[in-house]
Structures are given as C-alpha cells and as structure tokens.
C-alpha cells in the first residue's frame, strides 16, 4: 500500500497518496487550478506557470502541476499573491500571442479579470502560416510554447523527433531542422501534435480549409494542391 500524505489546501485538510501532485490533490477537493502546458499524457514541462500556488515557507510560488504533496504542507491556491502572478502571465501572453482559439486560456483570463490589452504596446510574435503538407497547418502566431507538440513528437508518444525549440527568450519558437518544411523532416504525419495542441496553432488541413471558406465538396481537390510527401527523409 502506498504511503498517505495529509496536507492543507485553502484551509481544507486532504489525505492523498505520496507522489500526488498539488494539482491532483486540489482536484479531489474540487479546487480548480489553472493549467495550460500540463497534459495528463505528457511529461509536465512546467513552463506556463499558470498553476503556481503559495506554499507556506517556500521563497517563491511553486508550480502545482509538478510539486508533490508533503505531510503538513500548507498551500493556498487563490491568494492575491498567486492571482496577481497568474493575471500578469496571461496578460503578457495576450500581448504576444493570438489566443482567440485557446479556450482554456480565455476562460482563465475571464475568471481572473485579465485585461487582454494591458501590454498591447509590446511586440507580438509574427510567423507565416505554414501550409507545407497535406495533413495539417502550423500557425505559430497562435503558439504559446507549451512544448506539448515537441513532447508528443518525441519521447512521450511518437519517438519521431521532427520538432524542437529554436532560438531563445522572447524569440523562442517551435522549429524543425533549419526550419525545413515538414515533408523534409522525419515527421510521419501521425497527427499526435495536432491532437495535443491547446491553442489552434496546429490544426488539420481540413479544418483550416473549412475555416477559410472552402466548401466541403471542394476539400479533396484543394488538399491535392498541397505539396506531396516526396523527399521525406527517413
């Protein structure tokens, strides 16, 4: 039997198995902690920091998606210190990325009273929409850099490693080898990346074409006009 741990979250005592994350423990109490990069099927990269909580005695806030419960811990998930950080992170995100198709991020923002225009005077991340293969499109102006696609393409699902991160800081972006079009990479078009993307940055070509107003009956003709897969390096 696994060891049990008792801690206090927002004033409520809760007993859960050791190894449980604060995010999961809070869930058992019905307390929802916002999370953007976390995905149950993937290694938590702990990059978005929306899930940060106050942990009594800790110098800084801690990310609930990876912080494991400890006996006697006292955690606050919605203190002003926490909310101020979450609000600012979302406002910063709005200022750089098109979140119009990121329902979770939008809902969190609403709940937190986020002002999407707060940092609107800053530089946005611009990218062309890559329509370079017959299966999906990549619109990185909508990408929040949650790393999910990279992980799904790599160690967590497909072991194909077509994707990585390029450059750094504000200019970090999802990259292929020298930004090559997908058909020239190791991509096998499994679609796992599209499946885990939370923002609409990756979507199937079909969905994209429908959004562009292509009538359903013209879809297959339109798809055939995309670059074929020749030259796919193995």
């Amino acid at each position, binding site marked *: 039997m696994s060891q049990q741990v008792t801690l206090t979250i927002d004033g409520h005592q809760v007993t859960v198995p050791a190894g449980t994350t604060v995010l999961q423990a809070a869930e058992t109490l019905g307390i929802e902690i916002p999370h953007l990069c976390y995905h149950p099927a993937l290694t938590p*990269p*702990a*990059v*978005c*920091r*929306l899930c*940060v909580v106050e942990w009594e005695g800790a110098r*800084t*806030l801690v*990310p609930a998606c*990876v912080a494991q419960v400890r006996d006697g811990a006292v955690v606050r998930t919605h203190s002003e*210190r926490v909310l*101020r*950080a979450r*609000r*600012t*992170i979302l*406002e*910063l*995100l709005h*200022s*750089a990325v098109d979140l119009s198709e990121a329902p979770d991020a939008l809902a969190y923002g609403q709940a937190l009273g986020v002002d999407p225009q*707060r*940092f609107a*005077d*800053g*530089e946005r991340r611009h990218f062309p929409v890559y329509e370079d293969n017959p299966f999906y499109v990549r619109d990185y102006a909508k990408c*929040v*850099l949650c790393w999910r696609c990279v992980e799904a393409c790599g160690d967590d699902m497909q072991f194909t490693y077509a994707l990585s*991160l390029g*450059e*750094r*800081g*504000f*200019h*970090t972006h999802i990259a292929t080898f020298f930004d090559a079009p997908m058909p020239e990479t190791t991509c096998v078009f499994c679609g796992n990346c599209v499946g885990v993307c939370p923002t609409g940055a990756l979507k199937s070509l079909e969905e994209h074409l429908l959004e562009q107003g292509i009538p359903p009956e013209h879809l297959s003709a339109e798809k055939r006009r995309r670059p074929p897969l020749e030259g796919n390096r193995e």
Partner: protein
Amino acid sequence: MTASADRPTWQAIPGYEAHLLRRVGQVDPTSLADYEAHGGYRALRAALEMTPAEIIEMVKASGLVGRGGAAFPTGIKWESAARQPVTPRYVVCNADESEPGTFKDRVLMEGDPFAIVEAMTIAAYAVGAEQGYIYVRGEFRAAYERLANAVAAAREAGYLGKRVLGSDFSFDIELRRGAGAYVCGEETALFESIEGKRGMPRQKPPFPTERGLFGRPTVINNVETFANVPHIVLNGPDWFRRIGPPDAPGPKLFCVSGAVERPGVYEGPMSVTLRQLVEVCGGMRPGRKIQAVLVGGAAGTFVPAEHLDTPVSFEALRAIGASLGSGAVLVVDDSVDMLEVVERITRFFAHESCGKCYPCQLGTQRQWEIVRRWQAGHHRPDDAERLQDIAHAMREASICGLGQTAASALMSVLPRMVTRFEGGNHVSASDADH
C-alpha cells in the same frame, strides 16, 4: 589577453593578507613544478590522509558558503551528495562567470589554475566522485587553455587519473566550453548544456546533489568557492572563521569596476564597506561623484550613495535589500545617465532569458521595451504599475534565478525613474541632479 595591464588588476585590500590571490601573479600558471614550489598540492596530500567524512566536517565547520551567488553552505552540499546511495557521482566546477561586472573567477583561472584542479580533486575525494567537469565561459580562452594545461599536467604527474597519488581514489576532469548563454551559469542549465541540450534550467527539486549531471548526484561549486577549499584543509576551519565577520567568514573576492581609478579584483573580509572598496580602488575618477553602486551585477540592486557605509556581508546587505551575489561592485558615476544603465540591464535579461517559462520569456521583453520607450521620451502613467506586476510575476513564478532577479535592479531605481516623468511626457537626458 592583450589588455594594457600596466599594473596588476588584482590585490589584497591593504592591511589584509591575500589567500585566494596569493599565488596569482607570483606563480607560473603553466607550471606544475612552480605550483608545487608555491605550496601547491600540499592540501590534497593532507586530504588523502583524512577520511572523506572528516573533510566534509571541516568544510561544514568552516562556514564556507558558495561564492557563485546563492551563498549556499558548501559543506552541507557536499554531505548531501556523499549520502546519496547512487553512483557515479560528479563534481562540477562552474566557471561560466557571465554576470555583468564579475571577473574574479577568470583572474583565478588565469593566474592559479592548478588550485582549482587540486580543490576539485579534494571535493571528489570527499564526496566519492570519479569524474569532474569544468564548464568555462566561451569568451575565456586564456583561462580555458591554462586549465586544460593544468589538468593534463596533473594527470601526467599522478594527481589525476587512476589511483591518485597511489591511493585507492581515482578521479579525472574534462573541460567544456560555453557558447554564449548567461543562463548556462545556472547549475541545472549547465548540466543540460554538458548533456548536449539547450541550456534551459530544470525545475527544482530534485536538487543537483540528488539528481544532477546525467541524473546523478552532483556537487557543483563556483571557481572561487573551490579556491577556498585547499586553505581550509591546510589551515583548519577555525583559521577560516577568524577571517571576516561571524556571519560571513572567510576571504572574499570583490570585482570593483566602473568609474573608479583602479578597477580590479580585491580580496578582503566581508566586513569591508562599499565605501572602503571604492577607496581601495583609488576612489572615483577626478571630478566624478558616485551616483549609485550596482551590487551583485545585473541580477543585483542599485545601492544609493547614502548606504555606502554598509559592510558587504550577506546579512548587512540583505538588511538594505541588496545582495552581494557574485561579488560585483559596479560604481556608476554622475556622468552616466541612469536610464542608459537600466536599458543595458533590461536588454541583458531580454537577450539572455532562455525562454522556457512564460513570466521571464515575456516579462524580460516587455520590461526592456518599456525602458526603451522611456529613452525615446515617452511614458505611460501606468508604466510603473505594469512593471511592478511584471516584476512580481517574474520573481514569484519563474523557474530559475534569472527570471527571479531580472527586475530587481530596475525595481531598485523605479521610484527615481518615475520622478523623472512627473510634470511632463519627457524623460530628462541626464539624471545627474540626483
């Protein structure tokens, strides 16, 4: 290095004996024999006569804390790695020294490279490590070559390799170079870099002593931290504790730069004050007044002139909201526009953020943009509040120390910056009246 070094740019503070800098400039840094003639490798021989636990006890008793910025007790770090049941274990020397205003590690590596190699060997013996790495900042070519030469000579002479000095203990060292990323000085980013990955910090815990380089227990220390170790082994913890104030024992290197007459690395106890450090450097250049001192580099804070009599001990600085960090004491005079200085600092963080976590990836960029807009003469009434919110998010929610400190220098002068805007949309060209 062909900089016009017409006089040494390192020395002990007058009235104080040099320990860390003792051999620098005196010993031939390329010669093992000369190092031995200057007392080199006596400490390792002494250490091999002790048990690893005894050495760890000594380092703990000395009160030595890390000189890389975080001031973590070195003995406790070693003990925690030594206790791990897992092998192999690693000893890593953090020689990435990239904090603006910091150059002490470089001076040690160039001037006394064997001391670092000897100290790492002692650390490896104490924690049971067989492999070490020195990660040297890419710009430090001379330091890299001196260290490479020292490692090769030590190996040749049996100070490194299988069965060091005929004992049962084996240890060797490899060198690695950085390639232009300040964040790789952060210990877990440094591991990632050695492992062939992007130098992005890891979420802690687990801490390096538990899962560090290649996922193994690892002791990582700063160059200067290591340089203290042979002295502690030879002279004992009590000797160490007699130097400096009780809460900050041992010798310390200060990197004094900026508008002083004789910038350089100065060794002294942590009871010295900022004013004394400026005076030791021959004071300000003629006709210049101190505007502020940036203590701790870009990750530090500006200490205004009225606090110059603060000792540089960790505790005394903490009391005025500052931190010695890496030991940078950067003197800004009244001829420099503070806004320019702040622009450099915010640009630095925007340039060096690894981009992993959102608060820093986005916050460092926005912070820099706002400061640049000020330079162009435009401000918004809500700038201060927005910057404070960014600072809060970065300090509280970032993964690593880079984001956590990226706003501290700016925040320490924010009230002054804001005063400049009052009464108009224009930022005055000079802050000299302050």
